[in-house]
């Protein structure tokens, strides 16, 4: 088996008496989309926060590209190639679509200490940003402010910013949330093509999208990982049906 790109080992996090993450070991292999599902309050967002570094685990380890990154801050993990998209869009809303994408390109270049010369005049950054916008289909709204985008377009922009980082792994927190049928079809098609570039850890509620995209699915419930397996295995799993899927599967 190939070495996983991203993995957690025995991750544990408690808030007072509430164990939000209990002994979670999960891995993301090259070329796959690994979906993480679970009911509200199952600990999905807490898990993502620990993987991306905004929350420190009480115990356990996070490994990225074979390296222990448990104590690295979020920015350092991002520089190593971990690209995150947010459940609630965290874009610079007053800035244009192009400026948001440029920020990603600037982060990738890793040299923000340039005080002169227009950022928009930098051909290297701009090329990278425009290529990412083109890929997600936001090219024609590049000059629009992020605040004026539709909800679905903001999701696409989140993905575009992640793309500018040239990531080694994506972590996406409910990218389909709040999207209509059309928007979620479009985003599903986009994500489908991304796995060849870098594997995606996909936390998602939209089961249609999960079943359409996932190579493997992990199920969280009450902070514990109750099952991991292929789509067919998870659909057939009794514990999972009881905890979450109900009749949907």
């Amino acid at each position, binding site marked *: 088996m190939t070495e996983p790109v991203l993995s957690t080992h025995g991750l544990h996090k408690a808030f007072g008496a509430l164990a939000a993450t209990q002994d979670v070991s999960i891995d993301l292999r090259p070329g796959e989309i690994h979906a993480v599902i679970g009911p509200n309050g199952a600990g999905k967002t807490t898990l993502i926060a620990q993987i991306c570094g905004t929350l420190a685990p009480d115990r356990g380890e996070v490994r990225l590209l074979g390296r222990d990154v448990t104590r690295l801050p*979020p920015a*350092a993990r991002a520089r190593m190639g971990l690209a995150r998209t947010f459940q609630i869009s*965290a*874009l610079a809303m007053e800035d244009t679509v192009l400026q948001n994408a440029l920020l*990603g390109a600037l*982060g990738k270049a890793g040299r923000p200490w340039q005080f002169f*010369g227009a950022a928009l005049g930098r051909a290297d950054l701009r090329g990278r940003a425009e290529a990412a916008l083109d890929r997600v289909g936001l090219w024609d709204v590049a*000059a629009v402010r992020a605040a004026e985008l539709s909800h679905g377009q903001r999701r696409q922009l989140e993905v575009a910013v992640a793309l500018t980082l040239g990531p080694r792994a994506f972590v996406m927190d409910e990218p389909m949330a709040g999207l209509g049928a059309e928007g979620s079809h479009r985003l599903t098609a986009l994500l489908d093509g991304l796995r060849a570039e870098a594997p995606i850890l996909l936390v998602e509620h939209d089961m249609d999208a999960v079943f359409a995209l996932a190579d493997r699915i992990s199920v969280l419930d009450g902070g514990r990982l109750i099952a991991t397996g292929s789509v067919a295995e998870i659909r057939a799993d009794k514990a999972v049906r009881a905890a979450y899927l109900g009749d949907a599967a």
Partner: protein
Amino acid sequence: MSRETLFNAAILALLVAVPGWALAAGEPFTITLATRAVIFALAAVGLNIALGLGGLVSLGHAVYFGIGGYAMGILAWHAQSHTPLIDGWLTLPGTKSMPVIWLVAIAASALAALLIGLLSLRTSGVYFIMITLAFGQMVYFFAISWPAYGGEDGLPIYVRNGFPGLNTLVPIQFYGICLALLCAVLALNAALARSPFGLALNAARQSPQRVECVGLDPVRLKLVALVISGAITGLAGALFADLNRFVSPVMFSWQMSGEIMVFIIIGGVGRLFGPVAGAGLYVLLEHLLGGVSEYWQIFLGGLLLIVVLFARGGLAGLIAGRRVAHD
């Protein structure tokens, strides 16, 4: 040309025309008032880099303004009293040279901003405001109780400091120096806002999470912004002391910090010429209403209320419209 460009050009034109008229009409006091406005504007442009670009509500910018003032006061006092500034293994004299004083003012206030920023940027929101205010008060009371340089009474400097090739005692020449510095700093501000650093800082204000997730450190970006901001306000402090030929702990007071912020709010937060418009209007009101009542700031308070309630973009927002994304 956008409305904002016109607004900026109109302010620049006023900054040239008003003193020009005063010179022709033989009204030196008007030139002094204009100098005061330009120096306040410079201090506020400094704060606007932290506040407008970086979103840092610093209620302690009087620290940098006062450090600039005392840099001038201490250097010039040693020069006029013919006592060495430092007398140990190395003997350093004071100086009456403006460029040297400016460099010392800039370096000292930048260093202070670095130290204050390292501590205060660990917090945000209202805690950041309170910590910057607390630093301001600490420095203020230190200045009051430090007897070496006049303590509460301050330091009078008898003759304005010199600038090579100019006679700074002529009001219009000193005004020219201040205006040139203001223009240089405005150009720097405009360049910063468009630069890669400005892009990252602007995003760090709006969404620190986003900046982290592209691998940049929002706190370091803000720290650098605060250092640049403090340095500029420090330079303004040196000029202010030179204008008055006097420096006292009042320059460190929290009212001073508040005034610098009021200039920006009246003029337009984050707008290039907002602080200039705000400082100009403030000095104008101070002059016109100050003659009516010594409690003229009641009217200023009313104006501030109106701006905050009905014209959030300040004068710049009112006249030039909403901020457009620059390219």
